């Protein structure tokens, strides 16, 4: 692994590692670490840093849904055009073109089920190219972005062993 890949792997594991800690783990100088991260950001490889939150454990109600979208294309409108339009809505947390029975998989977040439903019916469904929407409300989340939401793996090792 080169130093870019190494930094990227570490930040994907934990975006809160300090420059100092990244340097210590990779043997790079702190200035090299900073320069590498800056490059990764400028080049659009690193697009942001976010916490992985178990929303069910927070005090506010959050509703999330995965929406399957089917679209028709014409000479003037391609997937990218439709995606650009949908991605602008702040309710849309994720949007991907996928293979299989439908075209886009969209993740939507809102404060209530009615808010999410209204968003789909009033903002998404009327888009002329969209021919069908199927909404799946998320009922329970077990793992997000590689992080399990269970009680975790307890360290049950003997405290000192040969």
């Amino acid at each position: 692994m080169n130093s870019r890949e190494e930094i990227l792997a570490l930040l994907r594991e934990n975006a809160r590692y300090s420059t100092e800690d990244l340097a210590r783990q990779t043997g790079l100088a702190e200035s090299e670490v900073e320069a590498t991260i800056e490059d990764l950001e400028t080049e659009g490889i690193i697009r942001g840093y976010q916490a992985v939150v178990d929303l069910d454990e927070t005090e506010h109600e959050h509703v999330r849904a995965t929406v399957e979208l089917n679209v028709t294309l014409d000479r003037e409108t391609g997937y990218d055009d439709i995606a650009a339009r949908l991605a602008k809505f702040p309710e849309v947390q994720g949007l991907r073109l996928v293979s299989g029975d439908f075209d886009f998989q969209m993740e939507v977040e809102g404060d209530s089920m009615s808010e999410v439903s209204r968003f789909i019916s009033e903002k998404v469904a009327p888009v002329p190219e969209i021919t069908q929407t199927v909404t799946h409300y998320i009922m329970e989340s077990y793992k997000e972005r590689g992080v399990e939401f269970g009680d975790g793996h307890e360290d049950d090792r003997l405290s000192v062993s040969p």
Partner: protein
Amino acid sequence: MTFEESERLHSVPPSGIRRYFELAEEQDDIISLGVGEPDFAPPWSARDAAISSLERGQTSYTPNRGLRELRERIATDARERYDLAYDPDDEVLVTAGASEALDLAFRAFHDPGDTVAVAQPCYLSYVPGATLAGADVRDVPTREADDFTLTRDVLEAAGAGAADTLVLCYPNNPTGATMTRAELEPVAAFAREHDMQVFADEVYAALTYEHNHTSIATLEGMRERTVVFSGFSKAYAMTGLRLGYALAPAAAIESMNRIHQYTMLSAPTTAQHAAIEALDNCADDVAGMREAYDRRRQFVLSRFAEMGIDCFPASGAFYVFPECPWANSDAFAEALIEEQSVAVVPGHVFGAGGDGHLRVTYATSLANLKKALNRIETFID
């Protein structure tokens, strides 16, 4: 009626590690850098294979030497990774941990009066294993000046040439030292010249960070005199599943198996099913764990350097072996547990050559390592 301990057992002292275990257990917020096993759970697919085998009711004894499918995979893995060529039919023995295999070898090949030279500091089982087999032990202390590698000089200085057997473990517990092919050559020459058998504990072979592991058995004239010990505990984080193996010429495996068939019968069946899956599909998991260990290793070495604690650049297993800042390493380790709730193990516990050092395990999360090293820094200030 009293139970009178055998003389052999009587000469084996209780484990020197016990005291630190007891002290650490008394502390609430202990961060232990005193552990000799991975902090990871075994790869899920290996655990899943173990569960599936239980569901299918595959809980009978296996053949003494282990499941044929497992022996084949062990032989293939040893050939592909380390250029070790062993026939799965009669040159592989699957055991309950590498520890069992070592015990079998000590008992199979020694009579009272034989001598076993043990490169030290080392894992705690070799000396008792040799002693319980009736052999005399000759300590071969390695030196920090040699980065704790085994050299011809230290073998000669210890009079190891008079021994029947040489035991060595690289990558090493407790020092984290590794040995290159070039460094192993003179050791192999020494063993050939003195017609010694060699017990090579290579259970940490998958965990090297500067160069790939070389097995001493691959050096000229060594295969015929070497038993290689390895297992699934370290590379696959399967310690509690208790699965190891020995690789050796057919006659040696036959001898070891004669003890194994009476005392163990066969290695744990569930663990053998997990091990088959581990060898088939878990190379990526091992690579991921290895990368994590390497980052932690570099983190710990750089923190010790910042604190001004001398520590040779350990390049294998998951241990570093810094010099103890105090003259009395027992007092240091005890005070560190009591005052800062950080457990490390004094190096002398692991035998000759270890005095004045501390074994520090980095098989724990980076967050824990960070906290523990900050506490050590506070402690020595």
